[in-house]
């Protein structure tokens, strides 16, 4: 088998992988390889032809392909290497990557550091256990998006959408613009998992009803979907008898959640969080396996790609630093003995990324990203250093669909040499 050697191997050439590569190069590491399974760089952005990308990063509104293009051009200008149509088959804990494509067959790459940037996949119908037949016409929203925007086909004419994740909302508008009739969006929760702006711009503007606390209880049609029955659900998510409504349709789109794609991470032996389904990481976005970093939707599902790019840049920078330390043959044992502070999400806060912080390794400022578990109004986001409240920020509304963040300063944390826990929670006052 052919054997290659690189300093950093980046798994995935979507927005996370591209931003990580660019930043790692800036930090002075040159032997970088991006491995992408698709026929082009850019990842899922290539099929996100709507606008709304880049407001934070570029202060202008771009489409997905335009946003990706900016990073792709930089990667190409800087001659960062990448392999397309190439699948990572395995990664060992010693960072030997086995990959495969049609031209080179199976080959191995020895890497000093690895950046996981594989993104996420859509939850399927099977995971929901929706009863009924298994006809054609049931698609995850992202698959439908690919058919419409990349392949140029319409998967349906009369559509019901289950789940109000962002891709579902975007596809409600997209299918409508292409002449399909989107009859209803049913959401099992009492709130939408999507961005507020998408509900307004993709549903309200087109008169598409959003039924909260509703789910699909039956799918009709043996060969092709003929209709679905939706019903209201109670607080526990159980359908309420007598609330059933039947909608004729030929297509059911599912936008019921995204799952970080961590099968390769598991092969490496990276520890995963039960809440995010992504690796647990420290302030450097380094996983439980030293030298293996993670960023983007494989780490936790983001709402905006701008934050993916920002996070990935941090992972790229830290991976480069790691490589330089290894090259200087510095003893990494010191790191293991470093003071580590646990971040504890509680009282409405579901998780934090990172999950731990080593003050000595921090940048001057560290962003802590998190999501809340419900819609809350007029709450304070509070940060406690052990038992002392150090931040108390009023928020008129927080919702699960939107990622939140707080910034911690290194100088503040260093004032507390005995600090063992940082707690982030929502408080009423």
């Amino acid at each position, binding site marked *: 088998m052919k054997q290659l050697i690189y300093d950093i191997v980046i798994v995935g050439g979507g927005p996370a992988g591209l931003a990580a590569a660019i930043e790692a190069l800036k930090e002075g590491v040159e032997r970088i390889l991006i491995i992408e399974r698709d026929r082009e760089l850019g990842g899922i952005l290539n099929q996100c032809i709507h606008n709304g990308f880049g407001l934070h990063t570029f202060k202008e509104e771009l489409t997905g392909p335009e946003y990706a293009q900016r990073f792709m051009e930089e990667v190409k200008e800087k001659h960062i290497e990448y392999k397309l*149509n190439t699948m990572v088959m395995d990664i060992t804990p010693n960072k030997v990557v086995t990959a495969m494509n049609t031209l080179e067959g*199976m080959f191995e790459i020895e890497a000093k550091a690895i950046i996981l940037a594989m993104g996420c996949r859509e939850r399927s119908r099977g995971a929901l256990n929706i009863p009924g037949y298994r006809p054609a016409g049931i698609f995850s929203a992202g698959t439908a998006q690919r058919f419409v925007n990349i392949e140029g*086909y319409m998967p349906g004419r009369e559509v019901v959408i289950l789940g109000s994740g962002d891709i579902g909302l975007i596809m409600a508008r997209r299918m409508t613009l292409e002449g399909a009739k989107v009859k209803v969006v049913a959401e099992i929760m009492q709130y939408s998992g999507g961005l507020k702006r998408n509900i307004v711009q993709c549903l309200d503007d087109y008169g598409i009803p959003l039924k909260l606390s509703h789910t699909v209880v039956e799918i009709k049609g043996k060969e092709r979907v003929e209709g679905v029955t939706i019903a209201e659900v109670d607080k526990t998510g159980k359908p309420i008898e007598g609330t059933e409504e039947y909608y004729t349709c030929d297509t059911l789109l599912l936008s019921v959640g995204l799952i970080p794609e961590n099968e390769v991470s598991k092969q490496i032996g990276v520890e995963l969080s039960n809440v995010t389904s992504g690796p647990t990481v420290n302030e450097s976005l380094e996983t439980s396996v030293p030298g293996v970093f993670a960023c983007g939707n494989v780490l936790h599902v983001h709402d905006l790609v701008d934050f993916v790019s920002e996070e990935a840049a941090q992972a790229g920078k830290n991976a480069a630093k790691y490589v330089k330390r290894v090259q200087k043959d510095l003893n990494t044992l010191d790191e293991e003995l470093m003071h580590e502070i646990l971040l504890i999400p509680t009282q409405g806060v579901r998780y934090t990324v990172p999950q731990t912080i080593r003050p000595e390794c921090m940048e001057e400022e560290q962003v802590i990203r998190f999501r809340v578990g419900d819609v809350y109004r007029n709450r304070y986001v509070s940060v406690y250093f052990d038992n002392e409240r150090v931040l108390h920020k009023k928020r008129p509304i927080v919702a699960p669909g939107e990622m939140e963040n707080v910034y911690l300063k290194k100088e503040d944390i260093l004032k507390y040499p005995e600090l063992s826990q940082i707690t982030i929670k929502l408080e009423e006052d």
Partner: protein
Amino acid sequence: MYDVVIIGAGVSGCAIARELSRYEVRACVLEKEEDVCCQTSKANSGIVHAGYDAAHGSMMAELNVIGNQKMEALSKELDFAFVKNGSLVVCLDIDALPNLYKLYENGIANGVKELRILNQEEVRELEPNISDQVIAALYASTAGIVCPFGLTIAFAENAAMNGIEFCFDTKVEEIEKLRSGFIIRTNKGNVVTKYVVNAAGVYSDEIHNMVSENKIHITPRRGDYCLLDKATEGFVKQTIFQLPDKFGKGVLVSPTAHGNTIVGPTAIDILDKEGSNTTAEGLNHLIKTAGNTVKNLPIRQVITSFAGLRAHEEHHEFIIGEVEDAEGFIDCAAIESPGLTSSPAIGEKVATLLANKLSLHKNERFNGTRKGILNPKTLSPQERNALIAKNPEYGNIICRCESISEGEILDAIHRPLGAKSLDGIKRRTRAGMGRCQAGFCSPKTMQILARELNLDALEITKCGGESKLLLDRR
């Protein structure tokens, strides 16, 4: 004029076709669906039963034990996935213990080898995740698991290789008995044959009743299943059964031949012979009762659920043989569990019967060995690279969950009785059978199907008929 027409390309029909191809014969299999293995044979537990369940003295018992004994060698001849993993019938209630012993004795009488009653500790040693309530279990080391698609498709391909014809999308509407032989009227025209084999599964009553005054009735008995992610591999090693009741063998928890965990089936008698839809009650029942025999079942790892229909007849016995008032018409009806296990024996029994009736000669060119679709994962890296150098398509992964290459999909399309639909590809290669349930690979697989079959993408179906996936150009 055919010597034999077999109605139904499920596991029984295909097994009969394969065994019949050992002889010089003009034979044809008629199937109303677009592919083999589209109904009962595709949606079942995939268990190779040891043979202790069926009543001693029954044909079911006899064919089960023979089928079980043949399966391992057959899996090598026909190259399909089979694992002899053993089974445990778990007794959770001291009052039910005599029933466990009855099952043991029935098995011994049926000729099942290596049957043992295990005590609590022995069961726990075999299966750490077994329920704490376990008292004892019947252990059958000869039980196994098989890929039901793999088995059926292997029979069919081997039959086709040896000269048996297959007609798909061909529905039998009427059968007329002639003085000698039959005219079978189908949606595709008439077929004339000397002998008819009725292997029509849940429809075997309707087909039988077209020619006989001694009516039979088949009740579709629905079984719902949940399939868990391969990440659960090893949760149980043996197939874990509850003690049987009047509705059958109860809900089992088992590894599959490909490393998933399967939970099921329910047993719900219905009227609709096409009623293979899961129901909320069915799935809830599974989730509730599967936990009886094992603890901490990782039910959140479910990747899909499905239902199949068993062809149940009230006497719970296979109906195999020439119909009394219809000479030349051979029933192979009421084939419910252990039908899959028994299929090699059923095939042999019916083919032998036909060979005797028709005085058939041996087919000297018969080749009983069939190579399945090459699985590159079984090759060494060197061999795999040699393969990719020769056929680059084997280096192009299409289904990432199951790691299936374009080369395997091309093989599935172009081999005898090749795949024509997404489900056809799925059953032959496993592409689309993984945790994302075809979300990622279906656009790519559809492209390959359209290119190879020279079709427009709009014509590609999920499973034939009206199951078109795309409705328009943008």
